[in-house]
């Protein structure tokens, strides 16, 4: 009996994704990358999610501010509202929300797109025409999400803080300048940098999972649907797991 034989589907999947990831690094380090396709993908990732990111981030900023006010009021600390809200938004809420939106929209999109290319043999057609489909399709997409999720998350930060500004001013009055002064006073380097770094990992995970699911899609339209759905589930779960790891790491490094 082979005791090393992996039976658990979860472990098997994890193993397959790791192998896919290491293939990514191997292919990504070869010369002659597809820069044009990469830029194109970056554009698409931004184009598809920007509106959604903007609206969601704005609402979250607004709502969080409005809801935090009564609690702070109880402690007579209403003036701390901009500071408190900005730290929660920038450190945690905005990056995670943006990553989840991208997992839903980009991850599933990639799962479905590559999945249908797989089942209609378009990936095989690329291979026989001498273009490395992994480099052309996967490497470009993974780099695009890795770069664009942090960009989108930064946009999300800015928009949600603007929502916070409006939220503060619904009941109280804080001038534009004072609000931003308080926000930047509250945010330290140790808040912004870890949150930025983790979004790169979020983006990478979303790209890898979306591409992995699509690239290895099972035959048939049902397989494509399944690729798209599981891409969203796995990518979202990974975002939370990475977030958990990130908070532990920043904690250990004393960046709190």
């Amino acid at each position, binding site marked *: 009996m082979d005791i090393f034989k992996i039976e658990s589907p979860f472990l098997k999947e994890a193993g397959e994704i790791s192998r896919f990831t290491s293939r990514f690094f191997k292919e990504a380090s070869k010369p002659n990358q597809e820069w044009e396709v990469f830029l194109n993908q970056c554009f698409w990732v931004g184009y598809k999610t920007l509106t959604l990111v903007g609206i969601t981030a704005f609402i979250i900023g607004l709502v969080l501010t409005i809801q935090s006010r009564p609690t702070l009021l109880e402690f007579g600390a209403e003036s701390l509202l901009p500071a408190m809200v900005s730290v929660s938004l920038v450190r945690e809420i905005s990056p995670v929300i943006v990553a989840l939106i991208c997992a839903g929209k980009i991850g599933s999109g990639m799962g479905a797109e590559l999945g249908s290319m797989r089942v209609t043999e378009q990936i*095989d*057609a690329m291979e026989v025409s001498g273009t490395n489909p992994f480099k052309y399709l996967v490497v470009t997409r993974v780099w695009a999400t890795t770069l664009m999720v942090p960009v989108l998350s930064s946009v999300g930060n800015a928009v949600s803080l603007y929502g916070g500004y409006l939220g503060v001013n619904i009941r109280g009055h804080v001038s534009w300048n004072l609000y931003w002064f308080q926000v930047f006073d509250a945010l330290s380097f140790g808040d912004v940098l870890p949150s930025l770094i983790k979004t790169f990992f979020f983006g990478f995970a979303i790209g890898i999972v979306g591409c992995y699911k699509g690239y290895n899609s099972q035959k048939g339209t049902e397989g494509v649907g399944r690729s798209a759905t599981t891409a969203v589930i796995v990518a979202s779960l990974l975002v939370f797991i990475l977030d958990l790891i990130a908070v532990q790491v920043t904690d250990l490094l004393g960046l709190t």
Partner: protein
Amino acid sequence: MENGEPVIVVEKLNKSFGPNHVLKDFSMEVNSGENLVILGKSGSGKSVLIKCIIKLIDGDSGNINVLGQNIDDLEQDKLDELRAKVGFLFQSNALYDSMTVRENLEFPLRRHWSKEERADKAEAAVIEALEDVGLSHTINMMPAELSGGMRKRIALARTLILRPKVILYDEPTTGLDPITGREISQLMLDVQKKYNATSIVISHDLNCIKMISNRIIMLIDGKNYVSGTFESLHLNTDPKVKEFFD
């Protein structure tokens, strides 16, 4: 290569998917300039066989030699060079549905032609390939806007754009009306003449087979069961052969 010399040699090819032993010691030779038809039931492994020839699927054991090169010995670069000389028409056409017809046809050029060459000659090559299949007016259309027969012909144009010496056709006429089927068959004959190409054609379509085949191999039970001309197999009394021609 002289006409009549072997261009593709398959020796004792085996391929299984789990317990499903699809190809069992399959052997064949394809000679230069000939149109060889492979006939077999659905699921008998015809597509698997030609995918092994172009190394989209790795065989479990056996040897495949294409244009004098053993495909298992080739590095990726050499394999790509070889693939440029071998055209493959997919059963499902496999047109890139996010690209226009023009971009579809240009795609194979990106690996095999330099940037300058493409700037100079790609446009003319695309137009010529489209003229060959009689669809010049579709150049800026998306595959989704084309009918099934048109898609097949565009796929054929894409297969031919690099002027392959060997062409593998996977069911080129299946699902088309008899008239379009005949047009495609005629196209394949024209290509054979115009470029002196060698072809393997998978087909169930007796009209097409009759029209284009120089020789037929019957793939039955994973083996090269029998081979011969259309006429000789037509007269064959073996029930396994006979059922295809009834």
